[in-house]
């Protein structure tokens, strides 16, 4: 009897092995994007072409390689075939304030604003982002909510990693409509030698059932494979990973670690993530130097072991200059790899000479590229104006490194050249009229004021009270409309204002001035709430007369605490127009408006300057950090002479 039962069990086992049965259905699917290479998971697409960054693995909370984000908006969009209800990721190495906006299937969105991260502790210099509707959707009364995309808006180079999302398998369509769960074990053995390689794959089966559990899994699909790598280690892979080439990439990593000392894929090596120094010596010199028994040829590729030490070193935050240097270094390495075969034909006495050859090659290539970009334009003068005004446009090319290579002893000298080209644009009366018309047109297109139209005759008939009511209603309508403008629309109007010049706004109607004033105020409010792009910040800075774009953010913060600055932003345009009417050649900036308002407040109430001081808010460590560069310069112009006058007066007394 026992023997029969045993036989029956064995037959059952064999039947299971012949026809694997669908045992469990996974409803909840976790999918991870580890940013190991430039191929992202098919469920997500990322805008702005971010690159994979592997030079600072395991820094800023990242695991392995991560996604490098630079200045701009990066949109991560999920496939429409899946309904994502949970997403998490981290963003690290962010120095400036930034934001993340979540977009949902019901066309709503939500923005999380974050300030710059603390750079004193690189290990913890990251923010976790987690959005989940798992519990929310579980409540029957709630309408299910799903995440369709999210934006990451940054202004400095940063890293994004450990991204995962969760969706319901049963509602997925297209390629994501996976419902069955089977399990099998595949054994793959790869052997390799210096000349040939062979791959043998055998397949066995097990009866183990793998359930996809809710806690963070390490795989994305339901089928599990155990692969024996060439070095004898065993790794587990899912079906998706088997299909998307993860096994091949892992094998490449192992091979490259053995060959170059870098645990990277071939694509990463080709991209230049691994520092490889090609050392080309004459055979005799090489043998003398390295004293090796192996026969090495002139084109032997030797991996510089410094790479490993570099990775293990304590992380130091990179400045823009350092990043540029690193990029240059990477470019050099890529070119070095490209030139590897060509270099074989040359013999170099030293490593420096080989390096110099590659550098010169890159310089010549860059020069030829620039030469191709130069276009010759034919200028036709149809109408030459009587007054020719020299145009001013500040274009300062700073820290341009020009390397001079000397032929005598291969000496290289680096010098910094600063090229300053000054051009100024002064508009003629006709040009001002054209620009003003453009500004009015743009404002008319964008701004629609919801107040009844009143003719000039009707306004003249108004009593004083009616006139005040009308002005207030108009101001309120403009304010309400401008507040609802999109950032792009605000910037578009500001660009037109810059084209005209604030000093030329006297030419436009009072209504347009009021709209412009409101738009300028709105721009600062936007700068408070969200991160403006570099271009947008430049536009705002130009309107307010700032030379430094950082001043925009300083003013945005200052208006929260300083009433004078807030009032100055509010009245800047009107005051600038009044100032321009006095035919002054000087430029009127926000600092001038602030000083004017401070003086008016002082005259109105001299004691308030002392009484209104909030001693708790004073921080001696950053006294002048809340002042714009323009304001600092203005203050300097006053304070320095005051101190000098005092010193002179003391000196005069002594002589007396």
């Amino acid at each position, binding site marked *: 009897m026992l023997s029969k039962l045993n036989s029956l069990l064995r037959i059952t086992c064999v039947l299971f092995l012949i026809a694997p049965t669908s045992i469990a259905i996974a409803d909840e699917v976790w999918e991870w994007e580890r940013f190991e290479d430039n191929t992202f998971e098919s469920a997500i697409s990322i805008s702005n072409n971010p690159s994979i960054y592997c030079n600072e693995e395991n820094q800023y909370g990242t695991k392995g390689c991560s996604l490098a984000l630079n200045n701009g908006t990066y949109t991560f969009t999920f496939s429409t075939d899946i309904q994502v209800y949970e997403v998490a990721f981290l963003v690290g190495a962010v120095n400036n304030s930034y934001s993340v906006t979540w977009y949902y299937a019901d066309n709503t969105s939500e923005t999380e604003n974050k300030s710059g991260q603390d750079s004193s502790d690189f290990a913890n210099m990251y923010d976790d982002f987690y959005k989940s509707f798992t519990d929310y959707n579980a409540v029957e009364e709630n309408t299910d909510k799903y995440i369709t995309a999210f934006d990451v808006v940054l202004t400095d180079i940063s890293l994004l990693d450990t991204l995962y999302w969760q969706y319901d398998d049963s509602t997925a369509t297209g390629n994501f409509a996976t419902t069955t769960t089977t399990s099998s074990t595949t054994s793959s053995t790869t052997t390799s030698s210096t000349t040939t390689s062979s791959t043998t794959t055998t397949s066995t089966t097990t009866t183990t059932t793998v359930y996809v559990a809710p806690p963070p899994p390490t795989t994305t699909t339901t089928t599990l494979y155990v692969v024996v790598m060439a070095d004898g280690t065993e790794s587990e892979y899912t079906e998706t990973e088997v299909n998307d080439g993860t096994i091949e990439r892992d094998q490449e990593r192992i091979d490259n670690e053995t060959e170059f000392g870098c645990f990277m894929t071939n694509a990463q090596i080709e991209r230049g993530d691994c520092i490889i120094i090609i050392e080309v010596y004459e055979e005799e010199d090489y043998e003398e130097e390295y004293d090796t028994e192996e026969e090495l040829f002139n084109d032997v590729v030797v991996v510089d072991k410094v790479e490993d030490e570099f990775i293990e070193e304590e992380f130091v935050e990179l400045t823009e200059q350092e990043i540029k240097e690193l990029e240059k270094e990477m470019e050099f390495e890529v070119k070095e790899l490209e030139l590897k075969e060509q270099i074989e034909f040359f013999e170099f006495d030293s490593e420096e000479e080989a390096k110099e050859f590659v550098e010169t090659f890159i310089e010549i290539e860059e020069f030829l590229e620039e030469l191709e970009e130069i276009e010759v334009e034919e200028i036709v003068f149809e109408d030459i104006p009587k007054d020719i005004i020299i145009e001013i446009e500040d274009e300062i090319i700073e820290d341009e490194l020009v390397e001079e290579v000397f032929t005598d002893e291969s000496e290289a000298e680096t010098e910094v050249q600063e090229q300053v080209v000054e051009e100024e644009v002064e508009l003629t009366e006709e040009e001002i009229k054209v620009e003003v018309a453009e500004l009015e047109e743009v404002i008319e297109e964008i701004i629609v004021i919801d107040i009844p139209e009143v003719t000039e005759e009707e306004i003249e008939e108004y009593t004083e009270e009616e006139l005040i009511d009308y002005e207030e209603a108009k101001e309120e309508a403009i304010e309400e409309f401008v507040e609802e403008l999109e950032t792009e629309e605000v910037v578009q109007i500001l660009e037109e204002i810059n084209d005209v010049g604030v000093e030329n706004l006297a030419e436009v109607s009072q209504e347009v001035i009021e709209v412009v004033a409101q738009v300028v105020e709105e721009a600062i409010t936007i700068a408070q709430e969200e991160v403006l792009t570099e271009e947008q910040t430049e536009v705002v800075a130009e309107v307010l007369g700032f030379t430094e774009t950082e001043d925009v953010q300083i003013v945005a913060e200052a208006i929260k605490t300083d009433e004078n*600055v807030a009032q100055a932003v509010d009245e800047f345009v009107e005051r600038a127009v009044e100032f321009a009417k006095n035919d002054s050649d000087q430029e009127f900036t926000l600092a001038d408006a602030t000083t004017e308002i401070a003086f008016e407040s*002082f005259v109105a109430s001299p004691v308030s*300057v002392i009484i209104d001081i909030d001693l708790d*808010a004073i*921080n001696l460590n*950053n006294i002048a950090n*809340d002042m714009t560069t323009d*304001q600092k310069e203005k*203050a300097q112009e006053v304070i320095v002479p005051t101190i000098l006058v005092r010193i002179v007066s003391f000196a005069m007394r002594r002589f007396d």
Partner: protein
Amino acid sequence: MINKLWSWLIQAVKETLNLAWTLVGLVIATLTLTGQAQQITAIATVITLAIWLLTIGFRK
């Protein structure tokens, strides 16, 4: 006592007048500054002036 106080008041007015140009400069500086810098300059000006006037006798 009243005479002493009166005498000090006269001296204080004289000293303040001597400092008129400096004070004008500092007031303008205060008005040109913004934020914390403005507040600190204002406080420092007032406190220093007070100390200056209270120590007339000591300085002489």
